[in-house]
């Protein structure tokens, strides 16, 4: 069974669109974004920039990492001859930010855009508020900085509107947000932002978004309203009815083991420890990781085979753990509910028949059909340690890796 934590974890694997993809959707819905071209070779950046209004031009690395600007992933260029150099400094390089981990993420593409002269910056986003069970629009007159910082320092400058599920987003809600601005933008700008707010809600519904964030939303010197930077994330529970948008998923920057797990439909996160963990249920998986840490070892992964796991998913999950070369021992902790212990046992045996296992394996089973599961394991000729409870399982694993 999954958990709220699973949705936390899934936020790692969920579909995050690249900026250029999000901006293409905005264009389709009539929201103005800067003119730009996607470039995947530095040599093409010059050509791209020449066809776009400038100077200045902006070269932006297309990676899923916040704070990319601070890590050299966004460059403003005033000289056409320097555009290629800016692209060169990003494409084929890794960008390391506080959100990517030490390995960083590879940049394969950059977006070359027209520079815009900014008069005023705002923040506008829509996400789900858990407690109210509603999509929630957040608007702030402080744009272009991390919204968390605004939240902490100027909570009064965070404005919130929640559409009613029955009516959807209503125009008065945009007025509630905009007529609190001081000074008041031009009537034309107010009309434009009102339109953008409504369209953001349309996109949110149309694509089962979990987040749409425009930061900043700007009014230019010429008085135009433009979404300068855009993030869109899609709820992966909706993948069955959003096939087209899930085709936009860029596999290039992902951990190979996580990618394989994703293809198998398994919730797996690669960590840097030495004990592989296979558990059913996100809560128990996290708690099992916590226990491993308490014994002095480190979990090598999070792996929830899920409530609907069967012999095949177990076998595949096991296969992924075995591919991680840092794994020195494996702990399987299953508390059978929907997943029956006999199916788990069959899955483990199936995987062990296909793959060689060269590290110690500790298995702890409890719950639905536990006797049948234990019997299947006992009657096989494979070697592993069976723990009677969680405490013993943790102890056995710690002994194996110490």
């Amino acid at each position: 069974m999954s958990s709220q934590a699973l949705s936390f974890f899934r936020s790692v694997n969920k579909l995050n669109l690249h900026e250029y993809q999000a901006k293409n959707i905005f264009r389709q819905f009539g929201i103005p974004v800067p003119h730009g071209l996607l470039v995947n070779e530095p040599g093409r950046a010059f050509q791209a920039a020449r066809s776009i209004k400038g100077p200045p031009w902006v070269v932006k690395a297309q990676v899923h990492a916040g704070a990319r600007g601070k890590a050299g992933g966004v460059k403003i260029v005033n000289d056409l001859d320097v555009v290629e150099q800016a692209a060169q400094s990003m494409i084929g390089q890794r960008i390391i930010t506080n959100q990517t981990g030490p390995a960083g993420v590879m940049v394969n593409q950059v977006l070359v855009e027209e520079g815009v002269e900014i008069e005023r910056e705002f923040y506008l986003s829509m996400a789900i508020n858990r407690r109210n069970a509603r999509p929630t629009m957040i608007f702030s007159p402080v744009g272009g900085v991390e919204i968390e910082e605004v939240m902490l320092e100027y909570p009064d400058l965070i404005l919130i509107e929640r559409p009613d599920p029955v009516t959807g987003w209503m125009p008065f809600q945009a007025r509630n947000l905009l007529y609190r601005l001081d000074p008041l933008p031009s009537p034309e700008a107010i009309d434009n932002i009102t339109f953008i707010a409504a369209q953001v809600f349309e996109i949110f519904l149309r694509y089962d978004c979990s987040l749409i964030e425009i930061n900043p939303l700007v009014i230019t010197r010429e008085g135009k309203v433009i979404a300068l930077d855009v993030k869109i994330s899609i709820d992966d529970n909706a993948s069955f009815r959003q096939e087209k948008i899930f085709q936009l998923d860029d596999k290039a920057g992902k951990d190979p083991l996580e990618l394989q797990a994703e293809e198998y439909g398994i919730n797996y996160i690669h960590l840097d420890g030495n004990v592989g963990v296979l558990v059913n249920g996100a809560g128990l998986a996290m708690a099992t990781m916590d226990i491993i840490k308490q014994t002095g070892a480190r979990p090598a992964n999070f792996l929830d085979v899920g409530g609907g796991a069967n012999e095949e998913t177990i076998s595949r999950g096991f296969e992924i753990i075995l591919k991680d070369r840092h794994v020195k021992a494996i702990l399987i902790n299953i508390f059978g509910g929907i997943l029956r212990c006999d199916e788990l046992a069959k899955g483990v045996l199936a995987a062990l028949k296909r793959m060689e296992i060269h590290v110690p394996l500790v298995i702890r089973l409890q719950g639905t059909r536990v006797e049948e599961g234990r019997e299947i394991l006992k009657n096989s000729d494979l070697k592993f340690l069976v723990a009677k409870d969680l405490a013993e399982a943790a102890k056995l694993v710690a002994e194996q890796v110490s």
Partner: protein
Amino acid sequence: MSILVDENSRVVIQGISGRRGSFHTKQMLGYNTNIAAGVRPGKGGQRVEGVPVFNTMVEAVQEEGVNVSCIFVPPPFAADSIMEAASAGVKLIICITEGIPVLDMVNVVSFVRSRGAILIGPNCPGIISPGKTMVGIMPRRMHRQGDIGVISRSGTLTYEVVYQLTEVGLGQSTCIGIGGDPIIGISFIDVLAMFKEDNETRGILLIGEIGGKEEEYAAKYIKEEFNKPVLAFIAGRTAPTNKRMGHAGAIISRGMGKAEDKIKTLQDAGITVAQDLCSIGKKALEVMGHG
């Protein structure tokens, strides 16, 4: 007493003919749960595990007087099924299904509230009042009738905790999984309020995990309004912190959601937090006594 379900609950299984629906129907019948009907459109008139199947919830309510629904319908159709149950007048709906789109749940929660029904889940193990009835998918044999209430956002983690409670001799009045999705029906506070009024519940085990603010709300409620001993456990202290949710998600929870923050908030509210899952049964005995 126990809360929400007891031996008088007349249960209908929505999605009774599927692999999981039929398997768990059998398990529940084995616990003497009074399963009066099943629903599967197009299979009305048939029987599954001896239970009469109807095409619609309206028929199940009219013919069998069911008052609790348990849903195993797959994600694309689950929202429709929950609303069908509420619309037919069922006041307690337990949705086991995992993977329902969040935007579906926005509509569902609003709809269910407007019909005056209670939704447990989705993405939850269900509810059991040991010795009385079980409506869900938990392994039934490890529970024991008693006076400890268990509330959890997780499934299998709850089984582990209940297993240990029973091992140390602490039985349970009602165990309820509220579900792991971002948008769920009944909350920790809703359940605590019910346990507060339940004479057969003497103490509470609350099992939380990273993400959201449910535990923080619960801590505040317990401190201000709850009068029975509570032992809490929070999973996810080793969860990677650099892999975070989107900005707007973070702003709604104001940067909260980490296990350490939840543990601290609970402790600050005077609630004991178990640090070691392996010995949570013993810890519960320390906090609650033998009763």
